[in-house]
């Protein structure tokens, strides 16, 4: 008998107390009713506050001011390369107008090797959803967001989130996501609490997360 058949058979025997005709939905799942969620500007304020709680940098701008904030986030970096220019990973679909002119752009794609990712000083991306209650950015790796490795290997992640992408809670986010795509949920920069439960930012993922929150005028 194959392992598959053996395990399924053992599981069926183990469940002799469950009536054969019971539908798989026999245990009712009652979720908490959504609470009085903050609306509009309050959701965005909460999001900004909660992202900052994780020691991420949060700056807000209208569409016109965003490019300056992105440039400012990058300007603080010391380039890895000897020529003194920043190498910045930019996923296809990221708004051109937000990419500063004085950096070397590496366009993300399957041909960009892991070693090349490791030579980048930072990465720019957009996001799919922001969750106010938990201060979480969700990437579904669609246009502007890059492959999963793109926002992981470089030490700085600058993420542009539109205020209309921010939802109140986790259930709202899950409802918006397409399960067929890969997702990366990011709440603050990489962190560890493994040493005496002291929180330290930055182990393997980007040590700096810089969120630019776009509020349209």
């Amino acid at each position: 008998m194959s392992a598959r058949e053996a395990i399924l058979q053992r599981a069926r025997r183990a469940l002799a107390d469950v009536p054969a005709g019971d539908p798989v939905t026999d245990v009712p799942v009652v979720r908490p009713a959504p609470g009085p969620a903050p609306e509009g500007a309050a959701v965005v304020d909460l999001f900004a506050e909660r992202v900052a709680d994780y020691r991420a940098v949060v700056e807000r701008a209208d569409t016109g001011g965003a490019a300056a904030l992105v440039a400012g986030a990058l300007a603080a970096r010391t380039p890895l390369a000897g020529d003194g220019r920043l190498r910045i990973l930019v996923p296809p679909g990221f708004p051109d107008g937000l990419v500063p002119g004085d950096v070397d752009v590496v366009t993300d794609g399957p041909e960009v090797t892991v070693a090349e990712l490791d030579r980048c000083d930072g990465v720019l991306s957009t996001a799919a959803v922001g969750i106010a209650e938990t201060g979480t950015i969700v990437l579904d790796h669609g246009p502007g967001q890059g492959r999963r490795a793109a926002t992981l290997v470089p030490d700085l992640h600058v993420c542009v989130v539109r205020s209309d992408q921010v939802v109140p809670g986790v259930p709202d986010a899950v409802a918006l996501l397409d399960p067929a795509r890969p997702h990366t949920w990011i709440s603050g920069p990489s962190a560890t609490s493994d040493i005496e439960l002291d929180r330290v930012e930055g182990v393997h993922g980007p040590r700096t997360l810089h969120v630019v929150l776009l509020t349209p005028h």
Partner: protein
Amino acid sequence: MSGTFLGTPAFPTAARTALEDSQLRRNLAHATGTIRAKRAGVVSEVDDWEQLRLAGEAIKDRVLRHLPDYLEQLERSLVAAGATVHWARDAAEANRIVVDVAQRHGTDEVVKVKSMATQEIELNEALAAAGIHAWETDLAELIVQLGDDLPSHILVPAIHRNRAEIREIFLREMGRAGRAAPDDLTDEPARLAAAARTHLREKFLRAKVAVSGANFAVAETGTLTVVESEGNGRMCLTLPEVLVSVVGIEKVLPTFQDLDVMLQLLPRSSTGERMNPYTSTWTGVTPGDGPQEVHVVLLDNGRTDVLADPTGRQALRCIRCSACLNVCPVYERTGGHAYGSVYPGPIGAILTPQLRGVGTDAQTDSLPYASSLCGACFEVCPVRIDIPEVLVHLRGEVVRAHQRASRVPSVQDMAMKAASWTLSSAARTGAAEKVAGLGGRLAGRLGRTAPGGRAVLGALPGPASPWADSRDVPVPAAESFRSWWERTDGGRSRSDNTDGGRSDGPADPAPGAEGGR
């Protein structure tokens, strides 16, 4: 590299050794105290935490009651998404599958994201036997692995180590396994984390094969989920060409939507955060992004035995948050090693005996007794596992297993048989009570006074003596209930009212005040 729990003595012996280690107790008290406070803070922010726990319980119960259906659905979804599905009855079968995949790709090393399932099956040892290095990449697991130590906590495996000890391990061991720690390494957590970052990065960047577990596996869509903090998980899940995930069959969730309940319950219960820094989900293979060869090993290894016990089954609801460890007064004093299993603390005390089976070794059989039954573990469990209920149930199982193993009746058996013979006849019961009453009056004179002023018996003769040596045995009543009833006509005659509560007035409704009318 790292050892195994084989040969750990029974819990009472292991606990006694642990209790003598004052450094361990200090490290544990600090860590569990910190995390308890954080958890309480973020749980209190959620309006309807209890309803969320009930939903978590219901989702997992739905899966467990129909596990074969959900497993078949999960397999179909995974295959449709481009993953290869394997089934493993036990540890040996699971290990062989992972070793085969690694060997087929001609690699002598794999990177690993911390996984309870692969610790349970001792995958690292199996890979080592096949000449393959398994690099643990979670910071705490790295500390444990480099220290040739064993994990002692589900979430924070090196909870028993402080920063000074970690610095020493890094300085001594990192160079032997790859990039050495810098000579000027201090014991600041930020410096220690930076050393781990440099040490592991070269391994991430060259690894071809990665091994993970999964926190959840969605039957409806074939989506797997890993919840973590450091990014080592994301490194393993996205950089190598090949990914093998070892997933316990109880990890299934029915629908993608169910993730919303679990992703609210787990981080708050586990690290005491509103959300953990990184959660990754992947559904089979994504062309051009991440591993292009994805394997999923569905692991039984005793889980169907747990499933077969309707009382113990609820242990399979566990989402490995470790909240029960952090509130347990026993765990806080003994640490995880005393439990002799990758699953320590209250959940380990019920899961381990069920996975291994009771009645075969003393260490396993001691675990259901490694608890004060205070109930704090149930209070914090995000999926409402009634751990005290299962502990008591398993104590019964241990006793029954031992009875089956030895045909010679125990002292307890004989006492119970004698009691049932006595109690089955009113005359015999009355006679026995007269003797006890007589003995009680006598013993009352020979007894002593316990703290609080209760009269207790001194040493007892015969087979009951070891029992009484460690307990205060109340002095039996001077008169049996039967003889009191006969003498006073059930309290109706006045002779019993001399020291009764009736005359004290309505402010003191003493027992018997109602029944006497």
